[in-house]
Structure formats: structure tokens, C-alpha cells
């Protein structure tokens, strides 16, 4: 009943995809068996962030429960580019939906090498560029400054013919300006929001940080209103499609993101509460779009 949608030249069955790093299709197969493939909740699968070198991620604890949300300091653990290409990609390519590979580098050169390598793989339908990596000099997110981000996208854009989605950081003064810079440099789409920088105080009251990494990122319903504001601000200023996310937990929330200007919506934290959240969001969205048919 959902309608197919075109997104950056890809034909997707519906508008609901997963947020990077919040669904592991390979692990899900170990847990749920083939059922998860037969009833895949998303119209495309976005990988977690891949870096050039393998990363162990941050020391535990990595999770903190916040009011109407959670804070994570996972730290982007991944097998690195080679491990991804050899180990993960063949399994992800077998999923019944297009594959988006999310990559991050801390320098333009690193990003370029990632993009080139992923570009060479036909199994990958699109590339998402995570620019929430802290800039080594300023400590700010790489994607916080429109000029720096524009330059980065400029450099890597020519390296791939695949759709290039820039995943913006919300920790910035003017997310729409950053989105415009990405668009001007040739991005095919932008996605937002990533997590809000947040601190989790140790429950023992000692004032120490709870998370192994010190700080983390806030996600879930608590950030939804911030996400909608940023999605609306960006959509008003760019022509390229927007992937909206941040606290989406129902069809109604998805509808709100679409009304704010998003073409696709991504479900993140809500999948932790319910592995079929993506399907639930899609069905809810369908019911809102075709209220009669849903009865």
C-alpha cells in the first residue's frame, strides 16, 4: 500500500529507512533468523559509520538513559574499510533493499579514500558522509562550519558517481547554511539530525561522567522538536532532498518530518525499543496518507 518513492535516482519501496548505527542487519539475522530479511523494516539499509582503519569504539559504559531519550558514546566501532568490504558488504548486499554505506574520516584525504573505495563497489547504492567527526584543530564537528564542509564535499564529490548524502551535524549555529554549502558543492541529499552533544552524569552522584568516553550524543523523542526545526530550516533553503530523523517513533512523527520538508525519514533510537519500529512507522504513515484504505 505504501507508495514507491524516488530518492537521488534510487527507487525505494517507501519513505522509511534506518538511521546509521541504529540497526545491525547482520546481528539481527543471528537473532531473528531469516524473518528479518523476509520482513525487512526499511526501504533502504544504511550501514553504521565505516572509517578507514578499524576502531574498537569507546570504553563502556556506552549507554545512558535520559528523559525521553538516551545518550550514547558508542564511538563508531567498525572493522575499518577493508574489513567492511570483505566481511560486511557481501552480507549486506544480500538484503532485499538498496544499501547506503555511511563513511567518516577526520581529514579530506581519509574521506576521499573511503569514497573512492566504496564507489568501486556495485553493491552500494549510495554513500552517506558523516561529518560529525570532531575537527582535530578546533574540536568542533567537521560539519559545523559551512566553508570547511563545502571544501570537503568539493574534494570528494568528483570521486563518485553514486548519490552522495551529507549527514549534517546539529551542533552548529546555522544548519541551513551548512546544508547550502553541501548542496553548492554537489551533495545529492542531506540527512539530519545526528545526536546532540550531551553529558551523562554518573548516577552515583559523584559528578563524574557516566559514559566511558566522557560525553555522548542525545537521541530519541527528547530531540524530536529540535530535529523538526532543523529539518524545516534546511528544507527551506536547499533544493536537494532531505532525509529527516531524530526521535521519530510513529507514523505521525514521520508525517511531521515530511511536512517539514523531508523526502525520506529515518528511524533510529525507536528501533532499540522495537525491532519492527520501521515497519510500524511506515504503516502509520500509510494510514495517515490513505486514511480510508487503512480502515
Amino acid at each position, binding site marked *: 500500500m505504501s507508495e514507491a518513492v524516488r530518492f537521488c535516482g534510487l527507487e525505494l519501496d517507501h519513505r522509511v529507512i534506518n538511521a546509521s*548505527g*541504529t540497526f545491525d542487519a547482520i546481528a539481527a539475522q*543471528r*537473532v531473528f533468523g531469516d524473518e528479518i530479511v523476509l520482513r525487512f523494516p526499511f526501504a533502504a539499509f544504511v550501514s553504521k559509520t565505516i572509517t578507514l582503519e578499524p576502531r*574498537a569504539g569507546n570504553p563502556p559504559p556506552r549507554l545512558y*538513559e535520559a528523559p525521553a531519550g*538516551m545518550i550514547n558514546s558508542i564511538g563508531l566501532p567498525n572493522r575499518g574499510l577493508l574489513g567492511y568490504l570483505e566481511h560486511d558488504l557481501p552480507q549486506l548486499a544480500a538484503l532485499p533493499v538498496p544499501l547506503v554505506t555511511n563513511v567518516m574520516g577526520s581529514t579530506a584525504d581519509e574521506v576521499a579514500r573511503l569514497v573512492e573505495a566504496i564507489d568501486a563497489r556495485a553493491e552500494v547504492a549510495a554513500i552517506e558522509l558523516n561529518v560529525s567527526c570532531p575537527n582535530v584543530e578546533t574540536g568542533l564537528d567537521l560539519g559545523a562550519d559551512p566553508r570547511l564542509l563545502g571544501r570537503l564535499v568539493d574534494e570528494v564529490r568528483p570521486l563518485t558517481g553514486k548519490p552522495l548524502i551529507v549527514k549534517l551535524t546539529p551542533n552548529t549555529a546555522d544548519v541551513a547554511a551548512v546544508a547550502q554549502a553541501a548542496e553548492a558543492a554537489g551533495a545529492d541529499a542531506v540527512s539530519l539530525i545526528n545526536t546532540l552533544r550531551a553529558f551523562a552524569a554518573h548516577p552515583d552522584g559523584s559528578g563524574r561522567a557516566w559514559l566511558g568516553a566522557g560525553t555522548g550524543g542525545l537521541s530519541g523523542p527528547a530531540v524530536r522538536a529540535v530535529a523538526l526545526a532543523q529539518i524545516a530550516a534546511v528544507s527551506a533553503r536547499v533544493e536537494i532532498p532531505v532525509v529527516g530523523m531524530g526521535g521519530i517513533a510513529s507514523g505521525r512523527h514521520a508525517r511531521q518530518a515530511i511536512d517539514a520538508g523531508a523526502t525520506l525519514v529515518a528511524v533510529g533510537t525507536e528501533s*532499540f*525499543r522495537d*525491532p519492527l519500529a520501521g515497519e510500524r512507522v511506515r504503516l502509520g504513515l500509510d494510514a495517515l496518507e490513505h486514511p480510508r484504505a487503512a480502515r
Partner: protein
Amino acid sequence: MSAALPPDGGSRTLAPLERRLLEVVERREHGAYVVLAAEDPDGPAPQPGQFCMVAAAERWGAGADERPFLPRAFSVLRADGKRIELLLEDVGPGTRRLCELRPGDGLRLLGPLGRGFSAPPGDRRAILCGGGVGMAPLAMLQDELLAGGRDAVVLLGFRDAEHAAGAKLFARARVATDDGSAGRRGLVTELLAEELARDPVAIVYGCGPPAMLETVRALCERLEIPAQLALEAGMACGFGACYGCVVPLREGGNARVCVDGPVFDAERLASCLAPGEAA
């Protein structure tokens, strides 16, 4: 009936993809613990050591600091294909809310999840060693071993007699308490050391607080006795999606407790303590 113990951890009972909405049919108190039983006609038979992610169907949240938000992990205490039992200790907003539930209330449950215990290799005697609410996954394991005609010594450690009341959940068990108010005064790991001294052709199945598990791990390592330890970790999802529940491995790198565990062969673990935590 639980699923038979697999020869090793390779096989596991798969979880239905859907969170099931179950009805609580019984609530019992055993001293400091609460046992919740729910009808679960569509739940597959879990293996001992597997767990579930659980939330109350109504009003999950709005406790202190507006928590709980995420579901909570609980070992399967027992399951017979028609109903499932969980053992709860009220330690925070999530367990408090679940302890409030009464027959007729709804429960959202995803599972069984994770990798459970595997059968004792050869003719090693199974010694089940639990600390506090960590006894939960051992109950079904004992049932299964006894049903399979094997011995299953159960050693349990508790703070005091109020908690030791939980030992009644086992066919038989020896108990130690910190304050001596029930069973032997002392640590369950002392009972274990004696048991292993008596007959080292054994395998240890352990679950409990990190410090206890670490003592078990170190003891078994020293005595070169195999052990399977069920770990806990803060979890958001329980099915490998969030990478939040990791534990460092001796071989290097991290494992996710929810999909690679919660049961690990002790020899794969560097330590059962959280980084920086003292025994």
C-alpha cells in the same frame, strides 16, 4: 519445557521478530524478589541462559527523571512453551515499574535473545553458582540438567535471609549469606572453592554481580576448570543493534553481551569487572 541444552553455544533459539504483548497471570514474592509469570503461547522454548527485553505495556516511563525509556533485560527464569517466568529485583525505575504489575496487566517482551549455556562437556559435574538475582538463569539450567539425568549442584550467595528466600526457586541449593542470617555465613565463592577442591572434574556455570563473577573466573582459571559465565551489561536493544553492551575480550576487541553472550566461556574474558572497577 525449555529447549535442550546445545552441545556448544553455536545454536540458539531464535526470537520472533515481534515484541509480544503478554498478559501477566501471576505475581509471587520470594523474600526480596518478585516472580512475574505471563502467558506466552507464541514464545518458542528458550535455552537456559537466554534473556528477554521487557517493558510494561502501559506507563513505561514517568518515574524519577522520567525514566524508564528503554526496555530492560531479564533472564528467562523458566518457560514451558505456554508461560514464561521472570525473576525481578527492584533496583531502579524499570524494575520498580515491572514489580508493580499485577495479573491482567500487559507486558511487552522480545525474545528469547542471546546465547545461552551449553551442555557440560564429557562427564564433568555441573556446578551452578549464582549471586543474588543472578540466580535467575540457573533455575532453568538446573531443571534441564536434572531432566537430562545429570547432577547439578547449585550454590547461591545472598546478602541476607530475605534475599535467600529466592533459593526456594531451585530444586535444591546450598546457600551462603553475607550476614549469616541464612545458610553459611560468607561468600558463595567460598562454597564453590570447597566444592571444586572436593572434585575438580567439574564445569562451573556462573551468574551474579561482577565482583563475584570475577572471583569465579579467576578461581576457575587457576584450577583450569572450564566455566560459562552469564554477564550483565547496560543494554538499549538486546539484539545487536546499538553496540552499547560491550565487554572486552582477552583475545582483543569487544564482544556484544546481547548477541555474543550473555553466556561466555570464561577463558574468553579478560576480567568480569567493569573498567576501573575494584573487586
